[in-house]
């Protein structure tokens, strides 16, 4: 009788432990995925600002257009964590205002360095859109997992902060058709 009880309790403890460790492992994997997504989003944003600066410094544009671009790119690159979403949105708006100028693309495509720069810019803009969406997906899943009863009670997330979505206006210039 006692032996059976010990066996049953033992089995329950073992199963619970396996289950908890499986949940913890899953949360851990989610955190790793989130971190990678964050890194690639950071890289995409830095890249976009760099290409915008490069275009501004290329002497292919008039000085006013250069100044609009360079200012926005610089603000985006140097913004603190609090202002970052705002500054990146501003860069998106500045890019739209610049690239959507009448005949802007034709004019740039006419000079030898212009074409490749445009292509790099298009790629950088697209990658911001992609990586932001992937990051926000990862945030969503991780948040749901962290909010589960078990994860909260046993603090499975450890010291990992509750992740925040990255919300910016990343609408691309009209001439750049994505999706």
């Amino acid at each position, binding site marked *: 009788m006692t032996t059976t009880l010990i066996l049953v309790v033992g089995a329950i403890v073992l199963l619970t432990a396996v289950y908890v460790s499986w949940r913890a492992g899953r949360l851990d994997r989610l955190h790793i995925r989130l971190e990678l997504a964050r890194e690639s989003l950071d890289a995409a944003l830095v890249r976009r600002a760099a290409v915008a600066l490069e275009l501004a410094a290329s002497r292919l544009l008039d000085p*006013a257009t250069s100044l609009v671009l360079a200012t926005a790119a610089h603000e985006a690159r140097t913004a603190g964590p609090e202002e970052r979403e705002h500054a990146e949105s501003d860069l998106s708006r500045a890019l739209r205002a610049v690239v959507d100028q009448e005949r802007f693309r034709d004019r740039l495509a006419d000079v030898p360095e212009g074409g490749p720069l445009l292509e790099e810019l298009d790629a950088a803009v697209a990658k911001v859109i992609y990586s932001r969406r992937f990051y926000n997906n990862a945030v969503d899943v991780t948040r749901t997992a962290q909010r589960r009863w078990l994860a909260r009670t046993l603090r499975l997330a450890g010291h990992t902060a509750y992740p925040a979505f990255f919300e910016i206006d990343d609408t691309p210039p009209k001439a750049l058709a994505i999706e």
Partner: protein
Amino acid sequence: MRIGIVCPYTWDVPGGVQAHIRDLAEALIEEGHQVSVIAPASENAPLPAYVTSVGRAVPVPFNGSVARLSFGFLSANRVRRWVREGRFDVLHVHEPAVPSVGLLACWVARGPIVATFHTSHERYRSLSVTTPVLMSALEKISGRIAVSDAARKTLVEFIGGDAVLIPNGVAVGRYADAEPLPGWDEGEVIGFLGRMDEPRKGLPVLLDAFAMLAEKRPGLRLLVAGPGDAQEALARVPAPFRDRVGLLGMVSEEDKVRAYHSVDVFCAPNLGGESFGIVLTEAMSAGAAILASDIPAFRKVLDDGQAGALFETGDAASLAREAAALLDDPVRRAKLSEGARQAVWKYDWSTVARDVLRVYETVAGTTGVEEDD
């Protein structure tokens, strides 16, 4: 003299720089000079005979707020043609460090170029990276004017070199007399004029202060004139007081003057950035009792409080306290109003245009302004 003036902002949208250029141009024309102004303008906007349009301006984030600017090759070409056909003795560019027509004009022209710097910034970091872009254009400027000490300090700090100080002018006579707007001639009224959606103009501070005052003063109303999102502004005011806020939107020049005469206290709650406060000097010309934030430029224009009361910048409680004191003290209001009318005379356009002309004469040479290729 044949004078070409370049305006960076949309002509038909009210703004300090536009008003400055209009009044300067008209004062110079009055003196018998030939003046042509080039500026961005909305399609079909009625323009005075001396203004040439460079086309529409595009809204774009710049230096902390959204500005409507005109840039790009098409605009540059139109400025080039205007310079070529104008054969000016002197070219007067405004705000050449802003990416708009002023900067383009420096790019496409050479010869005697005068530039006026209006803005003051506490933070203009981005300028350091973009300096190479700006430098080649700014190096062509032979005479520089700053409209305030703050603007001059910004110039010295971020661009280098110095400038002469010629403050903004005010057409004092234009504001002196007007009837209050219909429906605004009784009760207590606090007034505000400026863009509602530009944080630096400080409207939220005033709205918060109004919410504090409204309960104790049932007769108090708020008059707000200027473009921007009305719903967003109203949302900041507690619901029961909303019908005591009058949002006029963008007003005509005539209604603006009447608005200054409709208020018991005119409030300028700017958070900074304003180099001079053309709105402030207009209100002074109208003899309004002024309550302004304590930024250095305002303190100076208001003679350290002699020509208008000051409150702690950005502090709604301080604004509410000062406004209540003013509303309760008609004698002090009358005194401030008189002080304002006196102090504003040294800013009248007749004085200013004379000084600007001296700058033109200093830089103008035997050759006029030419197209640069």
